[in-house]
């Protein structure tokens, strides 16, 4: 079976509850921060991005928060659904990097019925 995620931190959330996935980043000179979702056996899928001069950005059922003081990024998923089960990766785009991504460690989100 799919082995991605075996060694990843795991977050278990009850269906319908809100999920908060956290990420620490290292590069203070990054221009954008991005969240990707990777379902089992598939390539990553873009969820939402936030520019470095913003603190918060909202999408459909998702909110990304950026705290530059402590170099922390979080993804909040409202009313978690079974389809939200996946591995979530944060990534950053350093300035002048030709959109090269620096990937963070992933978090496996498990939805409990």
């Amino acid at each position, binding site marked *: 079976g799919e082995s*991605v995620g075996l060694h990843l931190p795991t977050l278990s959330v009850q269906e319908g509850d809100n999920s908060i996935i956290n990420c620490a980043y290292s590069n203070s000179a990054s221009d954008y921060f991005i969240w990707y979702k990777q379902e089992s056996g598939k390539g990553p899928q873009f969820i939402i991005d936030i520019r470095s001069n913003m603190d918060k950005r909202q999408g459909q059922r998702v909110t990304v928060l950026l705290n530059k003081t402590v170099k922390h990024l979080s993804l909040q998923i409202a009313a978690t659904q079974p389809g939200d089960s996946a591995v979530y990766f944060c990534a950053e785009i350093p300035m002048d990097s030709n959109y*090269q*991504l620096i990937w963070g460690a992933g978090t496996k989100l498990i939805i409990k019925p």
Partner: protein
Amino acid sequence: NAGVTQTPKFRILKIGQSMTLQCTQDMNHNYMYWYRQDPGMGLKLIYYSVGAGITDKGEVPNGYNVSRSTTEDFPLRLELAAPSQTSVYFCASSYGNEQFFGPGTRLTVL
């Protein structure tokens, strides 16, 4: 649009064999990327291209080569396969921040 397509989906190689992983995108994106993903890990950039005729090394280029003769195609070449190259390979393309990924090629080197 088909997006980003990759072939083959699976492949088993013997040590020392060569192969080319194909990647095609139909979104007219200038930027294309090759990543590898080992079990339980994030993605590592192998090579990238900012346009036809231009390629550059990423974080882990050793053992691989690429070419970009057209906007659409960005093949990845393994010349002498080694067990350390067992991984899942993803191709991606982008216009800006959002990278669009293919379904991946699962490669095993025995």
